[in-house]
């Protein structure tokens, strides 16, 4: 077949230019660069996934000496059976669940109520309130004074400590305020004329219109609570009140492991615990990813 005559694109000034992108055939868009680029991303994804994959398959492998295997040789669920039949592991799991649920609820309540007050532009004292909150972002008493206060109000060795302390999150509150600012003022004004109370407007207008933001910020709280280690480490010494992260850390550092069931080895249980700690989010993540990403962009949209 004869070589196709190439079209030439010449500007009025007589300079030859490459054809505009929309006139290129779709296939010719793929160049060597794109193949290399694709290859780079396969590599990047593998680097991210292999560590997680390795832990997952080791948690399902009942032989010792995992080495370089990337598939289990002796498949079995005994590692997980050991976790879910052992009280010393179920208790921390339960603590993680209830602190996450309670904390997320209280955190959302405080963030939305605080944010709702901060959008009342004519309210006397609004600026003072906003500055009171913002100042905590730039200065803090520090670890030891915080510990002493927590001890003084009996929130150490008390599950309420790690529930209540992270519930006031100024960053999330500001994100929520940014979102509320997007709600048309006229909605509030007409509700006010109809005799709606501030609390009524909060429940009937502000919250129902903010479902996406509530989901994003709620998820941010939930992840923070589920993953919380620092607050437990600082304020909880009673082992019965450990959450799953604390228990996992303990198990990684010592050989004081719960009794293994069946063919599970020490390392099988360790690996199974890591997977259990990330399982809830691994399952939900593909469905909720958009809300996570949105959370970051609520702040960015304002710029």
């Amino acid at each position, binding site marked *: 077949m004869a070589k196709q005559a190439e079209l030439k694109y010449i500007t009025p000034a007589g300079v030859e230019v490459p054809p505009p992108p929309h006139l290129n055939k779709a296939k010719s868009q793929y160049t060597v660069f794109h193949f290399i680029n694709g290859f780079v991303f396969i590599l990047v994804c593998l680097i991210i996934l292999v560590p997680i994959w390795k832990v997952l398959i080791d948690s399902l492998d009942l032989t010792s000496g*995992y080495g370089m295997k990337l598939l289990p040789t002796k498949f079995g669920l005994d590692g997980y059976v050991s976790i879910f039949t052992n009280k010393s592991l179920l208790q921390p799991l339960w603590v993680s669940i209830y602190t996450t649920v309670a904390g997320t609820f209280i955190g959302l309540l405080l963030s939305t109520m605080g944010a709702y007050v901060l959008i009342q532009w004519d309210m006397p004292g609004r600026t003072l*309130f906003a500055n009171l909150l913002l100042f*905590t972002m730039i200065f803090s*008493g*520090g670890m030891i*004074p*915080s510990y002493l206060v927590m001890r003084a109000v009996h929130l150490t060795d008390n599950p309420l400590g790690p529930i209540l302390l992270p519930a006031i999150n100024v960053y999330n509150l500001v994100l929520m305020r940014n979102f509320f600012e997007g709600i048309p003022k006229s909605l509030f004004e007409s509700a006010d004329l109809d005799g709606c109370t501030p609390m009524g407007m909060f429940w009937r207008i502000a919250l129902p219109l903010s479902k996406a933001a509530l989901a994003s910020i709620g998820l941010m709280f939930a992840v923070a609570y589920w993953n919380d280690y620092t607050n437990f480490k600082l304020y909880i010494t009673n082992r019965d009140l450990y959450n799953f*992260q604390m228990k996992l850390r303990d198990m990684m550092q010592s050989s004081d492991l719960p009794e293994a069931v069946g063919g599970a080895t020490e390392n099988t249980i360790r690996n199974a615990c890591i997977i259990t700690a990330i399982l809830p989010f691994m399952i939900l993540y593909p469905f909720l990813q958009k809300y996570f990403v949105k959370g*970051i962009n609520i702040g960015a949209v304002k710029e």
Partner: protein
Amino acid sequence: MASSTSNGTIRVGKKPLGQRMKKYWGFYLMFIPVLIFVAVFHYAPMFGIRYAFYSWKIVGDPQWVGLANFEKLFKQSQFSTSFWNTIVFSVVKLVLNTGMAVIISLLLNEMISIKFKKLSQTIIYLPHFMSWVVTASVFSLLLAPSANGLINQVLIKLHIIDEGIYYLADKGHWRTWYYIINLWRETGWQTIIFMATLTGIDPGIYEAASIDGAGRWQKMWYVTFPALGNTIITVLILNLAKIMNLFESVFVLQNDSVRRATNVLQTYVYYQTFNAGASADYGYTTAVGLFRSLVGLALMLICNWASKKVRGRGIV
């Protein structure tokens, strides 16, 4: 008190303060829980700063020592190591993570297949949602010097090393792996903000550049990269302001053999207070904490000023 202005709009003067406050009583009520939480968890600890001028072993009464804690602090080599570690770890980490995130974003932006792009994004965001404890656990297993450690085994097979190295127990290797682990965990998440900027670039600019004869690399260098410039500076400023907060990521990756060499200020405070038994001086560690907070405050103010210069608004 209404007065009409020349262009026909009506300006309403402010009512007396008492009346306005009465109008908003419901809102004040709603703000009370927030105020209580902020008072207890943020402002009450600020009054505890006075212990920085006392010596206090938690039992008995605090003894006034004036500035002695600060004199002691500047003489301790452990303190200066921790201080410089805080700065170095944070800054190196920030530069590496941001640089890598920019590169990954630029490459992601060039991807043609939407499905593959979405899949890549989903995967690279993933590690951000794993707690630091989980991250540390995963890597301590991967880096184990025994026959179970994947990384050592691979390196031995490739004849790069002869026998397993306990990477996390050697201070030189520890730093390298600290940065690698941070890259692994945070690069993907940081690309979100850069991708948002990249998708906001007007495609018309690219077309114009093409017509002017710019190739792929020229477009990347002259159009995409400058567009990212402002975002990069913003990200750097925002993160620079928080570098003194470094704690959990270091804390969970430390072990006894590298602790002294890898302490940052927060971990130093923690160990001096909670792992020192009866000799723990809460006054001294409060002083270290106060020093940290003040440096943090100074950084915040500098970054706020820089942010106002660069993008016209502050960071808080």
